């Protein structure tokens, strides 16, 4: 669910060109738009481009926004397009994996069965742990990553994600499952290797 804003933004004021209301809209939504850019592009510079382009675009087209979706969903849709355009410009080649994004059977089978879920928070969210998590997210094909970022990072519902991306709910669910399993696999490989290191260090300490 998209968090309700402290005080509802007035679509009427926005469309009439009320600049104070525009500034309020920018402040309410700049954090999620910036995070989406950061997750999708992986660099603060690119995230800032996504942020600026999204709101430039939004303010230019406010008068055409009919309010059929929420302001949040509309902004997410613009942000997703801006992010994907920038990604295309950065790496124009087609990603083979992307073409299989909606194939429910493609690449689901887990191969890593180390249970690292009981590791303490301070280990999982250490600087190193966070870096591993960020790197794992960057390995997701972009159309899986987009769904994952909206649903699991930003907390949009399946329906909101589908509306923002112009997908069916079934597509969103398929992509979300694939994204989650892909990430889980990556992190499991990382923690499996890490625990091997720790065991070796322990042994060396003991001898």
């Amino acid at each position, binding site marked *: 669910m998209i968090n309700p804003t402290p005080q509802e933004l007035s679509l009427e004021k926005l469309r009439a060109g009320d600049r104070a209301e*525009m*500034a309020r809209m*920018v402040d309410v939504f700049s954090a999620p738009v910036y995070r989406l850019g950061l997750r999708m592009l992986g660099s603060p510079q690119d995230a*800032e481009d996504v942020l600026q382009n999204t*709101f430039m675009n939004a303010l230019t087209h406010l008068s055409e926004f009919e309010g059929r979706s929420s302001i949040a969903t509309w902004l997410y849709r613009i942000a997703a397009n801006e992010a994907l355009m920038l990604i295309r410009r950065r790496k124009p080649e087609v990603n083979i994996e992307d073409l299989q994004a909606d194939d429910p059977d493609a690449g689901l089978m887990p191969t890593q069965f180390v*249970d690292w*879920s009981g590791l303490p928070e301070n280990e999982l*969210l250490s600087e190193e742990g966070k870096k591993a998590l960020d790197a794992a997210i960057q390995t997701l094909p972009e159309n899986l990553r987009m769904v994952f970022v909206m649903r699991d990072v930003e907390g949009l519902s399946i329906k909101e994600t589908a509306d923002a991306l112009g997908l069916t709910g079934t597509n969103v669910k398929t992509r979300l499952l694939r994204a*989650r399993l892909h990430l889980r696999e990556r992190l499991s490989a990382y923690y499996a290797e890490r625990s091997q290191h720790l065991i070796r260090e322990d042994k060396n300490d003991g001898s």
Partner: protein
Amino acid sequence: MMDHNHVNCETLLGSLSEYIDGELSPELCREIEKHLAGCDNCRVVLNTTRRTIDLVQSPAEAVPVPDEVRERLFKRLNLDDYLKPKSQ
């Protein structure tokens, strides 16, 4: 027990997201839990997938917009006269 309700590793995997999100019927949940009780691998996959989602949602991963970025944004949008009052 109805045969089509029988859950194996593959069908569990296909329903994993919806199971985690609490979107499945109580009957299917019971079948899934029955399978989980007897299958170590599926239990590990469930636990680590849940943990993965927890981690990306943790407050430690919530990045705020840096002040200078916000400032440049407001300037680009010609809204810099509204730049001052935010947190105050």
